[in-house]
């Protein structure tokens, strides 16, 4: 009898103890959740509510985490664009100011009569070139902003890549001749059907060639088009200064410039734009380079199904 009473007493005690623990745990958990939610509400999207898998409140906590995470991901994408725009704005002031100041330097010299005769003509020509480069830069900038605000829609179409490439390259021949760059195009005579947006394709190719012309100091450029494994492959290779290995992996990043501070207008945006456009067209762009030997850019696009 005594033993029974004792057992009953112990059981009752344990039950009370258990109830107290559960209540306390639940209270604490709710307090923790509220604390975390207040933090999230104040803008900290990285806060998570932790719960043990077998807790009663675990599904609730996990669900909240998932919602917060999905919002946070969207916010993060927005923040990234914002950050890039901010950086662009800061570097813009510098990228425009230096070439513009230099341009003014030339024009001032002409206006004040510091130079005369052929040198004067020379100066005017330089000023012209510099202002055109600035205009190109502003154009690129505009593209870039459009791309980043997702206003740049690519219209995929089945196009004849060989003919398209030829048309683009023809416009460059005078530039090459003017700068005494030897060129070598190997584009097969037969047609290549590829899925492309011709406008975007032209931009990519132009940006790559522009990059060679302005930055590589090359005196030879080769552009070839061929088909390999159901893909159209375009290679733009030069024998110029090349790109240092540590720079090579960053060249397609936004705003990456191998050397900052230059009086030549150069945005560091051209390759980034080429990269983004290629991605939009389901293509691939890669770069290989050896310093002082030259650089090879390779573009690959899916060929159109016959």
């Amino acid at each position, binding site marked *: 009898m005594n033993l029974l009473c004792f057992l009953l007493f112990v059981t009752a005690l344990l039950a009370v103890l258990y109830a107290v623990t559960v209540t306390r745990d639940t209270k604490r958990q709710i307090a*923790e959740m509220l*604390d975390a939610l207040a933090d999230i509400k*104040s803008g*900290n*999207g*990285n*806060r*998570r*509510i*932790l*719960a*043990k*898998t077998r*807790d009663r409140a*675990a599904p609730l*906590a*996990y669900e909240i*985490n*998932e919602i917060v995470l999905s919002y*946070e*991901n969207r916010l*993060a994408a927005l*923040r*990234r664009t914002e950050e890039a725009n901010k950086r662009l704005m800061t570097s813009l002031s*510098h990228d425009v*100011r*230096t070439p513009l*100041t*230099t341009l*003014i*330097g*030339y024009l*001032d*010299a002409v206006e004040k009569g*510091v130079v005369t005769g052929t040198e004067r003509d020379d100066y005017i020509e330089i000023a012209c070139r510099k202002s055109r480069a600035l205009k190109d830069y502003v154009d690129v900038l505009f593209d870039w902003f459009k791309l980043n605000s997702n206003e740049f829609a690519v219209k995929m179409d089945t196009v004849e890549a060989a003919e398209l490439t030829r048309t683009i390259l023809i416009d460059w021949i005078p530039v090459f001749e003017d700068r005494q760059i030897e060129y070598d195009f190997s584009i097969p005579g037969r047609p290549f059907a590829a899925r492309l947006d011709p406008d975007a394709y032209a931009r990519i190719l132009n940006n790559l060639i522009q990059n060679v012309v302005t930055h590589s100091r090359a005196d030879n450029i080769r552009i070839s088009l061929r088909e390999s494994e159901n893909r159209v492959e375009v290679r733009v290779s030069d024998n110029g200064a090349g790109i240092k290995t540590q720079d090579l992996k960053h060249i397609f990043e936004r705003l990456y410039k191998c*050397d*900052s*501070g*230059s*009086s*030549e207008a150069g945005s560091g945006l051209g390759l980034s734009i080429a990269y983004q456009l290629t991605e939009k067209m389901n293509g691939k762009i890669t770069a290989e380079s050896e310093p002082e030997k030259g650089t090879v850019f390779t573009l690959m696009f899916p060929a159109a199904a016959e």
Partner: protein
Amino acid sequence: MNNYVIETKNLTKTYGVGTSVADLNIHIRRGRIYGLLGRNGAGKTTTMKMLLGLTRPTAGEVFLWDKPLRGNKRNLLPRIGSLIEAPGFYPNLTAAENLRIFAALRGVPGPRAIENALEFVRLPCRDKKLFSQYSLGMKQRLAIALAIMHDPELLILDEPMNGLDPVGIAEIRLFLRQLCDGKGKTILISSHILSEIALLADDVAIIDKGVLLEEESLAALEQRSRKYIHFAVSDTAQAARILEREFGETQFAVEDDCNLRLYHPELSVTKIVRVFGENGLEVFEAHTCGESLEDHFKRITGGEGIA
């Protein structure tokens, strides 16, 4: 609310007569990678242990998210993921079992947290291999998995690249960068290798013999450490034209109407100043600035260098 995730106030730790950390004041901003650079034994690990409450400071205080760590451990520590010194796990258990123990004690943010963490560090989840049979690199990976399992806001990683192969190091570096840029996590990382920190961090603190020598953003350090010649002249437009015409130089940046930086320190300053003068420019100032990062660290740590 200020933006410091970690702030220490005169943090000090003495062992017997020796001082491991002295009057350390560091400030770690939200969403940044903060590199703690110092030689072995400089006090990096001790600092991190104090930040995590593993070691009690002799003096000073640690603030995490503006709250003192002392007395708030219960609320603050679950928001941190950490990796301190060598990975510590139970050798008779598999990776998943080890993580399960810590998950049962701390809780996780989702039902698949353990699998995700293991997948993330590329350790097989259903592996029967015991922790004792793991290679050093795999152990390190598991430790990283433990640190990120609960998706913490702040990561405190003590030499996380130890024991990893070059491919693994590149992977982890990319991942940390992505955590910080993409998800806005804050990361404190320590290393004795300058290049490691230079590749990864946004902010750098250099400590030597327990003393904070410098705390600066990497961009500022790099800016400062880039060699250039600074000119203050009466007309930057003319200066720019002269540099281009007379010296064939394009590597310069115009700061405003009278300040200009030339990133080509090999050119003779006196010659440039003379040519500027010949062209009717007034030169108020011209001096060479900057030193390489390595030189900088060597100088402030007292000559012996870091790595």
